[in-house]
């Protein structure tokens, strides 16, 4: 009783003090790993929000992508994290929600703007609670150098066969590295390799859900076939690709030295700024002409509220604004390549981004196979997939062995696969 009264008095005192000082000036700090986007947040997004809500000040304080999870967890445990938290999809954020660090946002009005698939990245396994507002997805495909294609006389490939014919043509021509990718940093091989072309073989959501349900295995044809494709990539990746890093590949492509770049749509704004040739994009080639195409349209960024925030009302106001079509339009056009997930129609101006998003109409969308549920145990399926994709490209491991190794690892802890 006594402490409650005391708390009440203190609360009242702070409220009075706050309202007396300024007209309830709330300050929100955003935690994010998108340090590339600092300028866009500061120049476009935050001013637009503050113009509408002059009583709320917003600060965007990103950290380095590779350290974000570790930094955020330490800050949350220490109670020094910001009010708004940019959410990684799936388990990293689910763990934060379960630990009570992220607030449940299911009831928030803006949430009705999103489909269940869009919310899947930030909902509990049974879908009962959603704790982050879906902000953007990234689409995988291949970006190509239009000038190089014209010069060598290669048509944009639609099928697997045409794809390798194009690579072969560039290799013979010799002026361009056929494909700009390296294996030094490992993740490109899995993210831009395996999970980029894979959905065509495991039939997108159908295969992904069957794998989670334990009805398919990683040794099944649908899951090994993408590795067979990757095994053929090594020949086209340029000298010393084993030590080529991700920034190396980006630079090789934007300098016009390579013809094809296995990409995620997040590259668009960077490439637009760097490359002085015309670029186009094609979706992952299908096995036979006329097959349904599948793309990886991966839920990548969400944004949620620190449960321990001092100004939950202001944070909710901000999140509701993020869920609005106004934010989607600013965000999608400021960052072409990060596609809004809301149901509201958004006009995109960038031609390359338009090409990527047009696949949503012609192909079936799926998300990366390893992200939901399957990377919870040890060994971690995502890390193993990086490793296996690299080993297959370098020819150190056969596609079948890679599939078997991953399946054994998964089955060692995941009950539906046992």
């Amino acid at each position, binding site marked *: 009783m006594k402490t409650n009264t005391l708390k009440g008095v203190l609360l009242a005192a702070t409220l009075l003090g706050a309202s007396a000082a300024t007209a309830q000036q709330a300050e929100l700090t955003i935690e994010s790993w998108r340090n590339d986007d600092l300028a866009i947040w500061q120049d476009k997004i935050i001013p637009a929000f503050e113009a509408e809500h002059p009583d709320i000040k917003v600060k965007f304080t990103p950290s380095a992508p590779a350290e974000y999870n*570790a930094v955020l967890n330490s800050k949350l445990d220490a109670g020094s994290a910001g009010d708004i938290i940019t959410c990684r999809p799936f388990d*990293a954020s689910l763990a934060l929600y379960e*630990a009570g660090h992220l607030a449940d946002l299911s009831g928030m009005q803006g949430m009705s703007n999103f489909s269940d698939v869009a919310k899947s990245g930030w909902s509990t396994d049974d879908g009962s609670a959603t704790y982050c507002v879906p902000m953007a997805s990234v689409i995988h495909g291949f970006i190509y150098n239009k000038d190089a294609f014209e010069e060598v006389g290669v048509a944009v490939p639609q099928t697997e066969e045409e794809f390798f014919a194009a690579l072969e043509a560039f290799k013979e021509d010799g002026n361009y590295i056929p494909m700009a990718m390296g294996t030094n*940093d490992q993740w490109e091989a899995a993210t831009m390799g395996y999970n980029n072309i894979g959905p065509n073989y495991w039939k997108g959501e159908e295969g992904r859900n069957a794998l989670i349900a334990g009805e398919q295995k990683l040794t099944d044809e649908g899951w090994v076939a993408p590795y067979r494709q990757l095994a053929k990539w090594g020949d086209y990746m340029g000298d*010393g690709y084993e030590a*080529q890093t991700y920034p190396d590949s980006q630079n090789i492509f934007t300098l016009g030295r390579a013809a094809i770049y296995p990409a995620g749509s997040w590259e668009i704004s960077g490439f637009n700024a760097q490359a002085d040739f015309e670029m186009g994009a094609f979706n992952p080639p299908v096995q036979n002409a006329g097959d349904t195409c599948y793309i990886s349209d991966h839920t990548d960024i969400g944004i949620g509220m620190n449960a321990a925030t001092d100004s939950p009302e202001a944070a909710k106001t901000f999140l509701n604004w993020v869920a609005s079509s106004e934010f989607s339009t600013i965000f999608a056009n400021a960052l072409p390549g990060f596609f809004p997930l809301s149901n509201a129609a958004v006009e995109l101006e960038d031609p390359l981004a338009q090409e990527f998003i047009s696949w949503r109409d012609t192909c079936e969308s799926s998300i990366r196979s390893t992200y939901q549920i399957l*990377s919870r145990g040890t060994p971690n399926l995502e890390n193993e997939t990086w*490793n296996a994709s690299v080993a297959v490209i370098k020819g*150190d491991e056969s596609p079948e062995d890679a599939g078997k190794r991953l399946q054994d690892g998964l089955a060692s802890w995941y009950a539906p696969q046992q």
Partner: protein
Amino acid sequence: MAAPSKQKTRWHIVVFLAPAVLVYTAVMIYPLFNTLRLSLYSEIDQERIWVGLQNFRTLFGDAIWSEQFWNALANNGWFFLIHMLVQNPIGIALAAILSSPRLRFSAFYRSAIFIPTILSFVIVGFAWKLILSPIWGIAPGMLDAIGLKFLYQPWLGKEEYALTTLSLVSVWQYVGIPMMLIYAALLSIPDEILEAGECDGITGMAAFWKIKLPLILPSIGIISVLTFVANFNAFDLIYAAQGALAGPDFSTDILGTFMYRTFFGFQLQLGDPHMGSTIASAMFGIILIGVCIYLFGIQRRLRNYQF
């Protein structure tokens, strides 16, 4: 007068020791023991529970964990071996050359060789990655210029070379430290001894092998222990050059990167502070054993000469 007066408590000792003891306890001793304690717990359903030695049983008994652990330990061993075989002999040789009174510009060489030591490992990792890069690096070009292009390999990307390459980069960075320590030891050898040796006909190389080397053996011992501790705690260079997954195919994974990955998590792998602490405790144990072997097995046999 002769009363056996109790000695007065000498408060000034406590006062002067306090800052060091407090700071050292706060930043070293407490975290160390807390890490050892954490390794005996595990988290189940958001609750920390006591599991005794279960984590160690997992680390050494579970094939998934133990394979990674032994791989990291073996890599660490190789990392250490290269330092012992390359860094320390080169350091001693450089010190011997530098201490020669006939060498000109010795101050310049000394600084030049020591400078990499004070560079940030991030700069060193990044610079060497660029130097060795197959695309922009100067290594392929330099080899080409002397007609040895066929020797070039994307070293950092090949499993068989990556760890050795990084060890040599680390040697390049830290060779200044054994050099400085040995240099100081060499300077402290009194000229009388060398002159006495000269009278007996021991000059030049023979003087180094027969007089100087035995006299600097204790310093070499200390350097070996420092190298051992530093190598088994290494993390930064590998992380800066190859990332937390220590590629290609874990061929550069050392205990430090393995611990980091486990403790803080990586990509979709969530951090597990308890298994991370278990690895850290194992590292502590390994280093402790290594240092003890040195202290009891070697240092006691070294003779110290008093001048």
